[in-house]
């Protein structure tokens, strides 16, 4: 099983770090939000991976099936996705307003404008 | 009224007076009348407690418990009684003096002045009557904060800077050192009540008690132990009534009073003597006595000279306490009363000189004694008391302090006291001598100015060649000088009042 079988978790780690990096490294406000989304997506995959039971199917009751994957993490993820969507929407709304106020959505240019005022 | 109620009255009366003063902002005469009436009532209440205390009673009462297990509690005992008598009695006199001074000087913000004064006296009463260290600490801090507006009264740049030094040192030492010592004591013993014999006996080892003593002594910044003394000269920027009452009587005496209470009721005289950890305190106190006197010699500004003299005299009391024997406690306690009267007289004179002749530097005061004879005679009386010559009260306290040094086997401190007396003569007597006998450099100019200046009741007195301070001020100075003399004869009563504190029977 070892490391190769755990490739889901490797993806989680990769996405988490990639998302984090995007947030920190880029100055463009929209890109930061995209990075945040990637970061959150890693968290979704983590939960979904927890939910999978070896040999289980989708958690919908059907004749002749005895092993189901755990439905609870799916529910939790749905909630988390909604939270993520709300966050993204709010973030983008803020970016629109910032653009109106500053004329730019690059963090460094905003800094410069703030310093001048 | 019962003892407990009287104590509550003593603390609450000045606060009530504050409210009345604030309400009468527009009516100066009523406002001043309230100050005088409140001070007289307070003095009556305080002196009314004396019989109960001298016969062994310890009246008091308990307020809220702000930390569970630690109430705000009041309990009168002889040391506190003495300090309260001094403070309340001198408040009456200072109020009289202040009225004369503030009006002739046309000072601003007089309502704020009288109101803060009243709050300061109330907190001083709280300190006098505190039954445990927490209560004392609370009122100690309130005293610092309520005197800040008094120190920075003139709102000038110098006053603001001085206020910073004042507040910085006093709050800094009290929070960083004193509060730590208090909480530590509570942690070690589970109580903070003032108990005869002390509460720290056997609760901690010698070195720990030594550190605790260090924290207490330097935490009590108001006692002006060097190097925490800078706030005293800085506070001289305040108007003279403030310097007189607060820095000759209330604030500094609260400091050394706290030192005495801590040594007698928290450590216990025997515990302190037993741990042998207080040598450093004796030496630093002695150093302060001499060093401050030497600095006083170099100061030309009269109030600055008196400020350093105060620093020196305060360390008399600390040294007496540090000697850890009963005579030291009695001498220290007595010195609270003697020095208060002597120093307040000197400060009153300094203020009178400022108001009448607008002079602050001693070098300019040659021959001024002939223009202001009453002031200079009162200054002479006050000086003799501070120097410690009979028949002035100061001689008794110095006598007991020297005896205490002898009893502790520390002859060197006897010499310190004697040397200090010589230094006192050196920095106090020249003013008197030159005032009366020296040729005035510009007396003619003063006389010409004063003849042309309009002099009214609030401004001063002018009779012939004499141009004196306002009558209210003269009256106040007369009372305190008489007090210096009378205390010489009352020293015995003070001894008997303080005897139980020091553990002396009878």
């Amino acid at each position, binding site marked *: 099983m070892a490391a190769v079988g755990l490739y889901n978790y490797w993806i989680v780690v990769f996405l988490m770090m990639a998302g984090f990096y995007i947030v920190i490294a880029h100055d463009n406000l929209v890109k930061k939000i995209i990075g945040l989304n990637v970061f959150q997506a890693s968290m979704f995959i983590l939960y979904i991976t927890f939910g999978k039971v070896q040999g289980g199917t989708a958690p919908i009751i059907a004749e002749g099936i005895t092993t189901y994957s755990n439905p609870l993490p799916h529910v939790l993820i749905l909630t988390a996705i909604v939270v993520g969507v709300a966050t993204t929407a709010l973030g983008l709304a803020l970016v629109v307003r910032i653009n109106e106020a500053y004329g730019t959505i690059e963090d460094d240019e905003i800094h410069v404008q703030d310093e001048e005022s | 009224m019962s003892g407990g109620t009287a104590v509550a009255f003593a603390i609450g009366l000045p606060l009530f007076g504050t409210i009345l003063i604030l309400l009468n902002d527009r009516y100066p005469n009523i406002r001043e009348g309230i100050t005088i009436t409140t001070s007289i009532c307070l003095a009556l209440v305080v002196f009314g407690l004396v019989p109960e205390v001298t016969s062994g009673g310890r009246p008091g009462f308990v307020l809220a418990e702000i930390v569970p297990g630690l109430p705000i509690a009041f309990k009168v005992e002889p040391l506190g009684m003495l300090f309260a008598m001094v403070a309340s009695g001198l408040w009456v006199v200072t109020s009289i003096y202040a009225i004369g001074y503030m009006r002739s000087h046309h000072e601003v913000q007089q309502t704020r002045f009288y109101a803060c004064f009243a709050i300061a006296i109330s907190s001083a009463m709280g300190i006098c009557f505190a039954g445990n260290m927490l209560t004392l600490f609370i009122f100690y801090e309130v005293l610092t904060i309520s005197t800040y507006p008094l120190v920075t009264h003139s709102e000038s740049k110098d006053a603001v800077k001085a206020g910073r030094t004042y507040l910085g040192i006093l709050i800094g030492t009290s929070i960083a050192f004193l*509060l730590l010592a208090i*909480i530590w004591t509570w942690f070690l013993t589970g109580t903070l009540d003032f108990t005869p014999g002390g509460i720290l006996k056997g609760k901690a080892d010698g070195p720990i008690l030594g550190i605790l003593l260090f924290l207490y002594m330097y935490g009590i910044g108001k006692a002006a132990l060097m190097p925490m003394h800078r706030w005293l000269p800085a506070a001289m920027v305040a108007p003279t009534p403030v310097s007189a009452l607060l820095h000759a009587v209330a604030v500094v005496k609260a400091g050394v009073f706290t030192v005495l209470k801590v040594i007698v009721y928290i450590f216990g005289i025997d515990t302190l003597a037993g741990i042998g950890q207080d040598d450093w305190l004796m030496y630093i106190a002695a150093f302060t006595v001499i060093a401050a006197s030497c600095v006083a010699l170099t100061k030309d500004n009269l109030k600055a000279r008196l400020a350093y003299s105060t620093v020196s005299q305060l360390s008399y009391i600390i040294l007496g306490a540090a000697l850890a024997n009963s005579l030291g406690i009695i001498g220290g306690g007595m010195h609270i009363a003697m020095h208060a009267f002597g120093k307040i007289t000197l400060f009153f004179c300094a203020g009178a000189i400022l108001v009448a002749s607008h002079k602050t530097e001693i070098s300019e005061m040659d021959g001024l004694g002939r223009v202001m004879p009453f002031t200079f005679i009162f200054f002479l009386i006050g000086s003799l008391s501070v120097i410690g010559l009979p028949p002035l009260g100061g001689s008794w306290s110095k006598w007991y302090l020297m005896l205490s040094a002898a009893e502790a086997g520390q002859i060197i401190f006897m010499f310190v006291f004697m040397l200090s007396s010589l230094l006192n003569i050196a920095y106090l007597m020249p003013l008197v001598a030159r005032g009366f006998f020296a040729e005035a450099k510009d007396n003619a100019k003063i006389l010409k100015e004063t003849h042309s200046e309009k002099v009214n009741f609030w401004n001063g007195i002018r009779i012939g060649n004499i141009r004196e301070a306002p009558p209210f001020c003269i009256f106040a100075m007369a009372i305190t000088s008489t007090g210096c003399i009378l205390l010489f004869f009352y020293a015995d009563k003070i001894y008997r009042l303080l005897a139980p504190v020091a553990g002396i029977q009878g």
Partner: protein
Amino acid sequence: MTEHLPALQVVIPLLCAPICMLVRYRDWSWVVALFGSWASLAIAWVLLQQVIATGTISYHMGNWAPPLGIEYRIDLVNAFVLLIVSAIAAVVTPYARESLRTEFGSNRIYMFYTAYMLCLCGLLGVTITGDAFNLFVFLEISSLSSYVLIAMGNDRRALTAAYQYLVLGTIGATFIVIGIGLLYAETGTLNMVDLAKRLADQPLSRTIGAAFGFLVVGISLKLALFPLHLWLPNAYTYAPSVVSAFLAATATKVAVYVLLRFLFTVFDVELSFGFMPLDTILFVLAVIAMFAASAVAIFQTNLKRMLAYSSVAQIGYMILGISFANVNGLAAGVLHLFNHALIKGGMFLALGCIFYRLATVNINDMAGMGRRMPWTMAAFVVGGLGLIGVPLTVGFISKWYLVLGALERDWWLAAALVLISSLLAVVYVWRVVEVAYLKPIPENATKIEDAPPAMLIPTWLLIGASIYYGINTELTVGVAKQAAQQLLGVS
């Protein structure tokens, strides 16, 4: 009816939010918000009395039994926090009407109160819930609405401040949810009490360790523990005055509560402080926060920013108390949670009064303020005395227990550091006092009056409470001590 109070505590503000959205006539949405906050306070008070009298309350949402159903579990700690959050809301809402007149467009006021009610609902929900994932959901509700509230500030920098808070806050929340997920993977449950039981039975594994790490870091971001505090100064400075007061007094306090809940209830003391040297880590970070943040506060010219850095320092005190992990230390942390909310809330309200008249809170414009707005500045100074820890204020009581907690642990250095850092507070408070009282009023200063009673009364309610609870400490110290004992599992 009373048995459903735990649910109503959250549901009432939650319902008030859409009602505010619909009520667009003038500022009647304010009336709805007022009802919502006052009702919450009443419920929180009743709940606290109930907990004191009969012990922990357990409410099953929808009658589904835990650990599968969501449980609202109220013991002394969260009853206390519920009280302070709802009390602050109840005092701030009457103030908001007048204050927002100058700071916010009047035809969109209903939007403000909608977000405000959502924020309150979220904070109360975080406090009252006994389910870990439910906690995350409410945490995000409160966070998202607070981003909105902050962005409503006048200055355009409010937008960037809200954005920065959004990014950092979301990272923090995501860490928290990863931690919860890892815990779920290890134990199979989300109910906090059940988690505690199952974690106690299991040996320590890397999963639990990782979960612990993610949770602590995520929560630390939300409570602005140094060095994860970077979002706080901008957020508090540029938000509307009401929002600064409300958030400063509640948001970080609730995050401290979450930390307490996870460190002591879910993971018990041995795990939290044995597995990693968390006490040392928290101690070091707290001390740095106390000194560095206070030092930075001294040099700020914008008074709101000064108070924001002061808040970071005060949070350091709370975390310091927690790092002691003994009854006195924890009690000090819980106590300071309450006390600081009163003090900071009051001081921010006072600054709001000044902003209402002056349209600025720069210290250079404050000359002579003590005479121009006497009641307001007096409130600010009394609050400042509480920050310093002068006796007779609540700040003194917190410091007392902090030093006691340090002494119990033989950490003399910590005791001294607590007191010395208070001296830094003296400097930054006294800067304001000197300018306001000892500088003359400039000649060209506009003539202003003191703030209107609608704003002064709430300010003085909070500041008065900071004195009252500094003298009558029966309720606060009693509850804090018992709560600390409950958390530590000692009697």
